């Protein structure tokens, strides 16, 4: 609705530059159009089952051809002493949080891109290099990205990382839901590696059902809250826990899609392109009516 009129204006506006270059604008497929399929996939993370073995961290690196020490070294829990975040060298990390009732057995939480249903990064990306796929994945396109890092500003989960130390072709690094592996019929690396299946991979709607069922059956074991079911309009990755998610360093987020306010402002300013054109007309009118006026107020000052 807003796109055609706005784009046609911008097309006219950029005629000087774009047309001169002989290039046909390629409108991003990443637009806010609702491409959410009812069969879209997701992962349910049960933090009450996770044992903090960090096999997922290793599997992720293997799946993405990133350098990694051998699997045995991940048995060392020392790196979990401090809070880590996914970065350009590790697309997923496991953090631990002391459990009030069991000092020896902390809660461990895997962190990675949540693959939002209404991703702020997709809405923000200046060139539409990030897109929401019908299968649920939020993917980044290296051929389009200009490295502006607006996605990092926008992401409510502070997930995208950037290769700050590369002078040429630095990349935005984040979980890609193992799209390549899934094309080969495999599971995402982390899901396959998890020894206790704390990560359950499947259709999102099915996972919500499974999660509800778990909570219903074990009301003592779980907090009645599926994190990601509704946060920022829903995410593909969802979490179960036995205590408040804020205690596990999950951001407390509203249920409105993250890009909502920003997009409605953008669309408001450009609604059918009436506001800018009206302003143009108004200024034109003022210019016309005052054209013979020669003011000499300054002289009178």
């Amino acid at each position, binding site marked *: 609705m807003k796109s055609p009129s706005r784009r046609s204006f911008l097309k006219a506006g950029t005629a000087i530059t774009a047309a001169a270059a002989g290039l046909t604008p390629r409108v991003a497929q990443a*637009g806010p159009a609702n491409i959410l399929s009812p069969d879209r996939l997701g992962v349910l993370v049960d933090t009450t089952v996770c044992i903090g073995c960090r096999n997922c961290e290793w599997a992720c690196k293997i799946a993405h051809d990133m350098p990694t020490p051998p699997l045995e070294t991940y048995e060392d829990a020392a790196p979990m002493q401090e809070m880590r975040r996914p970065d350009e060298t590790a697309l997923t990390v496991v953090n631990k949080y002391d459990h009030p009732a069991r000092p020896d057995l902390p809660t461990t939480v895997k962190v990675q891109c949540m693959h939002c249903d209404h991703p702020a990064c997709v809405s923000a990306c*200046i060139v*539409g290099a990030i897109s929401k796929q019908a299968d649920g994945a939020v993917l980044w396109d290296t051929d389009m990205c200009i490295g502006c890092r607006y996605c990092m500003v926008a992401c409510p989960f502070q997930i995208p990382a950037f290769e700050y*130390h590369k002078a040429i072709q*630095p990349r935005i690094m984040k979980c890609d839901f193992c799209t390549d592996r899934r094309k080969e019929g495999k599971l995402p690396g982390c899901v396959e590696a998890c020894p206790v299946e704390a990560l359950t991979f499947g259709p999102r709607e099915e996972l919500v059902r499974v999660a509800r069922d778990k909570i219903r059956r074990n009301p003592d074991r779980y907090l009645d809250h599926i994190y990601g079911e509704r946060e920022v309009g829903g995410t593909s990755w969802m979490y179960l826990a036995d205590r408040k998610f804020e205690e596990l360093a999950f951001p407390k*987020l509203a249920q409105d899609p993250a890009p909502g306010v920003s*997009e409605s402002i*953008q669309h408001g*300013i450009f609604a059918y392109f009436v506001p800018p054109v009206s302003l143009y007309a108004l200024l034109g009118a003022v210019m016309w009516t005052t054209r013979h006026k020669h003011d000499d107020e300054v002289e009178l000052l």
Partner: protein
Amino acid sequence: MSHYMRPQPLDRKFLTPGVIVLLLLAANGLAWLAGRFLFGIGAVTNLNNQYPWGIWIGIDVAAGVALAAGGFTTAALGHVMHREAYHVVVRPALLTAMLGYTMVAVGVSIDIGRYYYIWHPLIMWNGSSALFEVGMCVMIYMTVLYIEFLPIVTERFIGRVNLPGPLAGLNAPVDRLLRLLDRTLDRTMFVFIIMGVVLSTLHQSSLGTLMIIAGPKMHPLWQTPILPLLFLLSAVAVGFPMVIFESLIASRSFGLKPEMPVLGRLGRMVVPLLGIYLAFKLGDLFIREAFVHLKTVTVESVMYVVEILFGIVVPLRMFMTRSVQKSPLLLFVAAALVVGGVLLNRINNFVVAYTPPYATEAYFPSIGEISVTVGFIAILVLLYRVIVLNFPVIGLPDRTLMPASKYSVRG
């Protein structure tokens, strides 16, 4: 008075002690910049995965756009509303805007990781992205600014084309081309002038929309859905103070008499503009009940109070005073406070207010970042000097037109 003022190239020496300092600052900035291109952004800046944007965006881009607002506000005043008296400040403001936007464009392209893809937004469009809108508007507006500046170039060269050596034969055709360009521009300039004002209104506001998507990552003192409006209002409010600021510095630097009558009137016009901005800013603060965050002393609350108090309230009171409107020094201080306030506002919005949930350490710009930003500003000032020395930008009293007595009476 402007009837007797005619813009002309200034006849001054280029090199002065101040210029040498500026040259050194510029060289230093360029050296750090070379590091960025050779070893990546991480080698020169303190940016990281927690703080993706620093002062290169906050100052070079956001503040750069805001402080170039003199261009469209004076264009609206002088050209759209035909307040001819102000024409004397239109050209310097236009030059400032043109240089400012050039810095914005360069600033953006060094900050993005893949500067060689800077043209991507031209052909890859994402209509929902505020940044896309800012990018497009800035690109178009910059083109418009260059077009608006063209008459100054034609004016400089028409009748004076003097190509060296073997190209001398082309002098006449080039001159004819310039005259044609001048005539065409004369007839179509109004299109570009209005376009410039509209584009400025659009992207000054969308610059505010930029941070809205950061949502709870932005401190509630600044995060508000009316950010675009606040950005537009502040840009409008800072336009004239920036012209005053820059004009007074130029007068001082080139040893000219300050255009006090024009500047004083501009100062008076700042009052309602700044007042409206203040009203919206405070109204927003109270409607959202964000003032509770001012109760505790934090970096954010202090910066907010400084921004409001010294950036808006104090200069607003000053501009309302007649003696300030007549005193170059006080006028300069008031203008500088507004300029500083808006500069601080942009830094606050893009850097101070940005509080990511998992930040392990605070961001403070590195020496490299500061050097590059300072270097850019130095280059800007140098370019300004080069251009006013060679092109008819600054209005000088034209002795052939001006009755000396009248000038001296008003002086």
